[in-house]
C-alpha cells in the first residue's frame, strides 16, 4: 500500500510543479458552463431544466481533457517502464495514478459545481444532489478514462481516438448522474440513481485498474 500512496504523492507533487496543466481542466469546466446561458438565453426556467445536463457534460469533457496526459509523460521519459518492472504490483501503482488524476481533475470539478450551479438558479438541495452525484461519478470517469488512455498510449492521433473510445463508455455515468439531479428537481426519489452510480463505481474500481494495467503492458512491449 505504501507504493500506492507514494504514486499518489509523486503525481500530486509533479502537478504542483506544473500548475497550468491542472488549472486547464478547471478553467475549461467554468468557461463551458458559463457559455451555455449566453448561447441559450437568460430564461431561469429553461436554464434550471438543462442545468444538470450541462454541468455533467462539461465535467465529462473536462475530465477527458486531462486524460491523454495521464500516462504519456511517464511513457516518454521511461518512468512507466520502471514502474512495470518494479517489485510493487503495477496495478497498485496504476490505481495510485488514477486516484491522483481524480484528485487533480475530478475533485476540483465537484467542489466548483455548486458554485456554477448557482448560475442556473438551482436551489440548495438540488446543488447538494449535484455535488453528491459528481462525487460518485467523476471517479468513475477517471477509472474508465484510464483504460482508454492506456490503450491509446503512444498511438497516432491518440487524443481524438481516446474521445471516440471513452465517450460511449461514459454514457451510463452521464445518464444516472444528470438523471439524479433532474429527478430531484422533478420531486422524485434519487436513491436509485445514486446507488446505481455507486455500484458502477465499485465495479469500475475493481476492474478498471486491472484492464488499464493489461493495456499498459501491451503499450510497453
Amino acid at each position, binding site marked *: 500500500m505504501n507504493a500506492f500512496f507514494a504514486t499518489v504523492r509523486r503525481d500530486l507533487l509533479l502537478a504542483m510543479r506544473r500548475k497550468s496543466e491542472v488549472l486547464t481542466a478547471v478553467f475549461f469546466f467554468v468557461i463551458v458552463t458559463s457559455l451555455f446561458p449566453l448561447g441559450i438565453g437568460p430564461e431561469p426556467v429553461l436554464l434550471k431544466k438543462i442545468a444538470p445536463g450541462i454541468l455533467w457534460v462539461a465535467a465529462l469533457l473536462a475530465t477527458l481533457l486531462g486524460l491523454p496526459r495521464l500516462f504519456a509523460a511517464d511513457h516518454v521519459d521511461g518512468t512507466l517502464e520502471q514502474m512495470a518492472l518494479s517489485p510493487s504490483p503495477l496495478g497498485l501503482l496504476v490505481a495510485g495514478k488514477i486516484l491522483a488524476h481524480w484528485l487533480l481533475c475530478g475533485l476540483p470539478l465537484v467542489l466548483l459545481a455548486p458554485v456554477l450551479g448557482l448560475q442556473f438558479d438551482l436551489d440548495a438541495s438540488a446543488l447538494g444532489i449535484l455535488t453528491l452525484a459528481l462525487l460518485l461519478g467523476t471517479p468513475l470517469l477517471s477509472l474508465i478514462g484510464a*483504460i482508454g488512455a492506456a*490503450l*491509446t498510449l503512444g*498511438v*497516432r*492521433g*491518440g487524443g481524438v*481516438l481516446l474521445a*471516440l*473510445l471513452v*465517450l*460511449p*463508455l461514459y*454514457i*451510463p455515468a452521464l*445518464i*444516472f448522474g444528470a*438523471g439524479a439531479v*433532474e*429527478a430531484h428537481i422533478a420531486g422524485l426519489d434519487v436513491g436509485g440513481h445514486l446507488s*446505481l452510480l455507486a455500484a*458502477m463505481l465499485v465495479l469500475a474500481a475493481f*476492474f478498471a485498474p486491472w*484492464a488499464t494495467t*493489461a*493495456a499498459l503492458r*501491451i*503499450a510497453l*512491449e
Partner: protein
Amino acid sequence: MRQSLIQWFKFASPQSFYPLAGRMIPWFWAAAAVFGIAGLWISFFVAPTDAQQGEGYRIIFVHVPASWMSMFIYVVMAFWAGRGLALNTRVSAMMAQSLAPTGALMAALSLWTGALWGKPMWGAWWVWDARLTSELILFFLYLGFMALQAAIDDPRRADKAGAILALVGVVNIPIIYFSVKWWNTLHQGSTINLNKAPSMAQTMLWGMLLMALAFWMYSIAVALMRVRAIILERERHTEWVKHAVE
C-alpha cells in the same frame, strides 16, 4: 477428445485455416442465398398486410435481423478477441478484426432502417428510443474498435489492445443498454415507445427468423473472405504464403 483438441489447434494456425476458410465460404454463401430467398418470399408475398401499419411494417424483416446481428457479432468478436488474448492464437485475433466491419455495417443498417421505419410510424426520422440509442452507441463502439486497430502499426499490439477494448465493451453493453432504457422511461413524456410493435403473426416470425439466418450466414461468409485477406497481409513474409498464391 484429445484428438479433436489437436485438430482444433491445427486449424488455429493461419496456414491451415486459410484453405479451410476458402473451402467453407461457398457453403455459407449458398446457405445465405437459400435463407435469403425464402425469407424475402415470406416478407413480401406470404406475410399479410398489418392492420395498423399497412405495408410499412415490412421493414421489420431487415431491421430486426440487422439489429440482432449487430449485437451478436459484437459478442462473437469479443469472444475471438479474448480467445486471441488468452491463448495467443493469431487466427482468433484475425477473426475479431475481420468481424468488426461487418458488425459496424449491421449496426449502420439497423440505424438506417430504424429511421425509415420511424418516419412513417411516428413522424420522426430519429427518436431517442432506448433501442435506437443503444444501437447508436454500439455503432460508436464498433468505430472505436476499428479506429484503435487502424491506429496501431504493430499488428500484434493492435490485436491485444483491440481485445481489451472489445472485452471492456462487452461488459459495458448491458450496463449501457439498461441505463439508456432507464433514461428513456424517465423521459417518457417526450418520446414514443417503440415497444408497441404489431402483434407477431406466425408467418411474420418465420420471415424474420429466415432473414436473420440469411444475415447470419452472410456475415460468416463475408468475415471468412476478409479473414483470408488479413491472413495473407499479415503472413506475407512467411514461406507458405509465397507458395499459397498461384
